[in-house]
């Protein structure tokens, strides 16, 4: 079952710094990802099809879901004005339509409590800036795992073995904090 012939992975990169957006875009494109960059968490949510509900904050009404947007991974800066990367992570994980998209957080500050909170709240990885090629190389496994999970879910119902399998929890302990 070959994966390499599949469509390119689409990564949404969120960072308020233009320099960092340029960097992450080049790093991702070097790994053959298709990249979209936005400069705020709010724009990211809009891109993902979330529409503001003045009463309840951001949520995704069924009718407004942008069916054409197909984002396979979101990589976001932590420190951003108005809405942080952590807030963005929470909004994504609270959304039924978006919660399965892997989210990666980047930060220039090495704050263990911040890192742990992000990982506990569902971030797949936490990269310290400046992000390296070796960090970006860690993304493909998460994308391949998501893609194979998607493919499983579209299999015919008589494949009972799949239904009984539960996906192993992501091993967050494998993250090493850089000193």
């Amino acid at each position, binding site marked *: 079952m070959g994966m390499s012939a599949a469509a390119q992975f689409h990564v949404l990169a969120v960072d308020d710094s233009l320099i*960092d957006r340029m960097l992450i875009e080049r790093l991702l494109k070097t790994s053959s990802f298709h990249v979209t960059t936005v400069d705020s968490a709010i724009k990211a949510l809009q891109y993902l099809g979330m529409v503001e509900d003045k009463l309840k904050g951001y949520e995704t009404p069924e009718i407004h879901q942008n069916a054409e947007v197909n984002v396979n991974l979101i990589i976001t800066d932590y420190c951003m004005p108005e809405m942080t990367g952590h807030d963005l992570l929470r909004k994504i994980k609270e959304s039924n339509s978006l919660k399965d998209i892997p989210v990666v957080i980047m930060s220039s500050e090495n704050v263990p409590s911040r890192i742990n909170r992000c990982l506990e709240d569902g971030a797949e990885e936490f990269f310290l800036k400046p992000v390296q090629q070796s960090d970006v190389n860690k993304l493909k496994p998460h994308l391949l795992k998501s893609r194979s999970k998607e493919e499983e879910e579209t299999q015919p119902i008589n494949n009972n073995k799949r239904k009984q399998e539960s996906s192993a929890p992501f091993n967050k302990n494998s993250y090493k904090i850089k000193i």
Partner: protein
Amino acid sequence: MEVGQMQRQWIDYTRSLFIEGFLDAQFLQLEQLQDDNNPDFVVEVVSLFFQDSHKLLNDLTVALDQKSVDFKMVDAHVHQLKGSSSSIGAQRVKNCCIAFRNLCEEQNIDGCLKCLHQVKQECCLVKNKLETLFRLEQQIMAAGGSIPLMELSF
């Protein structure tokens, strides 16, 4: 000057920038991201940094000149400068910013003013250094040569 000589000059100059701490490994990362499809990537990012830092330094000058200094805002500007200098590998600027942030936390105005002066100097220095480097690169390419691959081995 023939190409080989220019290339040796480029190598020596680049090496000196690393040894003197103006640049760190992140700068090499930038160079690795440059290729035939993105031949001006390094110059673009570096130019952007100097535009950005110019504005930030002006904002910092104004902010520290106020009767009642808003240290939170000063810190936010320095945080941004620290981030962008770190992203391009401008090590001395970055280190200055780290010291600057500590002084912000202490709300030490004199210290901050001294640091601001220092950051301005470091930005100026690294800008001149990089302009010299890019000029050398242009000369090499104009003469039909290519830029040597640089690796940190010290």
